[in-house]
């Protein structure tokens, strides 16, 4: 191969790579693009027209204002925020508290505790959801009792996860023992040592846990659709699914509502994208 041939070969490879990657990217976003396109089409335009028009001919924002007036998106958003916020907060506190002794303390039953946590990884929520529902009912943690009880019921089954406990355990294992010794010599209690000295040192892991727990909780659909009975308690995924029933075949409204509901998580993703695509936190999201 001459020098020139090598250069032309490299160039071709690069172009081919870009063509494939652009195609995959387009396939990834096309369903959304088509949804956005439909949501911007007015009543004067046939949304089933062949050939399909990506650029709306009868452009309008009316579907967005229409669906906004009929559906309480702010309410769904607030509910989702409460549930995701509560889930994140509890996961941070409980995972850190449980991860610490598993990393740093010696005690009777440590092995049992460790393997019990590991065992929960193998138990899919989908297989135990029925008893979880029965227990939640028995504890009166449902929205028919009160809104607060409803929120607690939405949060509690996901208040801690094996993933979080192991992540925090790993983080505590990485702290040099001298830190603890120094604090203890200074007369610090173990409780104070934990909150004042160790927690600030595991902030990066807490951030990772917070972000992935938030995404998981935000998108959760199965559990809220089982327990919720009142529309005023709907989280965004449940509310969006409900659009199908509300507007049956009005795809302009369903499309506009779906896109509206996606905006918050899209902003969150773009702001936090390095956590997701850097590859450092691989495997953190539930598949």
């Amino acid at each position, binding site marked *: 191969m001459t020098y020139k041939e090598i250069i032309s070969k490299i160039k071709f490879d690069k172009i081919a790579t870009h063509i494939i990657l652009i195609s995959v990217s387009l396939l990834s976003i096309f369903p959304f693009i088509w949804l956005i396109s439909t949501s911007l089409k007015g009543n004067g335009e046939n949304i089933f027209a*062949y050939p399909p028009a990506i650029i709306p001919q009868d452009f309008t924002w009316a579907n967005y204002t229409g669906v906004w007036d009929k559906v309480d998106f702010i309410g769904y958003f607030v509910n989702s925020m409460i549930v995701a916020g509560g889930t994140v907060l509890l996961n941070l506190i409980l995972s850190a508290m449980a991860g610490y002794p598993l990393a740093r*303390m010696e005690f009777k039953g440590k092995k049992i505790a460790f393997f019990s946590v590991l065992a929960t990884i193998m138990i899919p929520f989908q297989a135990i959801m029925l008893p979880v529902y029965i227990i939640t009912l028995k504890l009166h943690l449902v929205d028919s009792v009160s809104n607060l009880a409803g929120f607690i019921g939405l949060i509690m089954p996901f208040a801690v996860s094996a993933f979080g406990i192991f992540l925090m355990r790993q983080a505590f294992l990485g702290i040099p023992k001298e830190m603890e010794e120094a604090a203890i010599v200074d007369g610090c209690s173990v409780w104070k040592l934990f909150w004042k000295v160790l927690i600030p040192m595991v902030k990066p892991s807490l951030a990772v846990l917070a972000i992935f727990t938030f995404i998981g909780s935000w998108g959760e659909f199965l559990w809220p659709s089982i327990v919720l009975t009142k529309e005023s308690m709907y989280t965004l995924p449940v509310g969006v699914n409900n659009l199908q029933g509300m507007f049956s075949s009005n795809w302009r409204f369903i499309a506009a509502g779906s896109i509206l509901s996606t905006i918050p998580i899209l902003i969150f993703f773009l702001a936090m994208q390095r956590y997701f695509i850097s590859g450092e936190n691989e495997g953190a999201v539930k598949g």
Partner: protein
Amino acid sequence: MFKYYGKYAPYLFLLPAAAILLVFFFIPFFQTVYLSFFDYSSSLYAPSAIDFDNYIKLFQSPVFYKVLWNTFLYLFIAVPILAIFPLFVAILINQKIRGVTLYKILIYLPVIVSIVVAAIAFKWLYADQGILNYFVTKLGFQPIGWLTDPKWALLSVVIVTIWKGIGYYMIIYLAALMSVPQELYEACDIDGASFFRKHLTVTIPHIMPTIALVTTISAISAMKVFAEIYVMTKGGPLNSSKTIVYYIYERAFENLDLGYASAMAVVLLVIVMIFSLINIFCFERKKYDL
């Protein structure tokens, strides 16, 4: 190091998490097994103990076999594609080219968007007179009943799961690709090896553990699909897209047949536990210090 904490300190730290795991994992786990030995179909309030009758009924039911078959079909279609295609994409992205971050963001986008929105978006693509059927007819075929034809419904739903998973597994592969020694690639380049040869002889053997990991985690999540089916087909038409979690949901929460649903849940538990054990003890040992 001297012991600086009291005898009960470790237990107090563990207590809150242990309480949650006990109430919302371990008790429900045993209760699932327990419920599977009762019959609720005649009375919800006075169930009768029936030993293994639910299981016998289950394994004599053609619908259950259909559902189990659908679940494994789901797995057999989704898992190989999710194990291979994202690797291919990751290899392409892992080159010194422009726009890597943008590609990653766009390909990852389906992962973060709610599964409900994704399912609605695809339902719209799959509409009878929708955009996909436009291309199908343009190519000279009859329009396809993507979600209404029993031959196609399951495949149409699997496509959503695959589409939503590509970005996720791509990122896992990208992390693994960073660990492949660059000298090996340089050696290949000097030998003039082709793109495919280079990756077949260097990349694949090096990241085999990751491929195995992706295979098991995508298999576990394929076993658990629910929202796609709930939003798009409700398991229909004629049970053609019904998988095990959806069937458990339907039996438990719509038919209130708690015992029968629990027996199915036990079957699901056993399958997922086998996959998880393989995963933990073969591929994730290091993560858990086993």
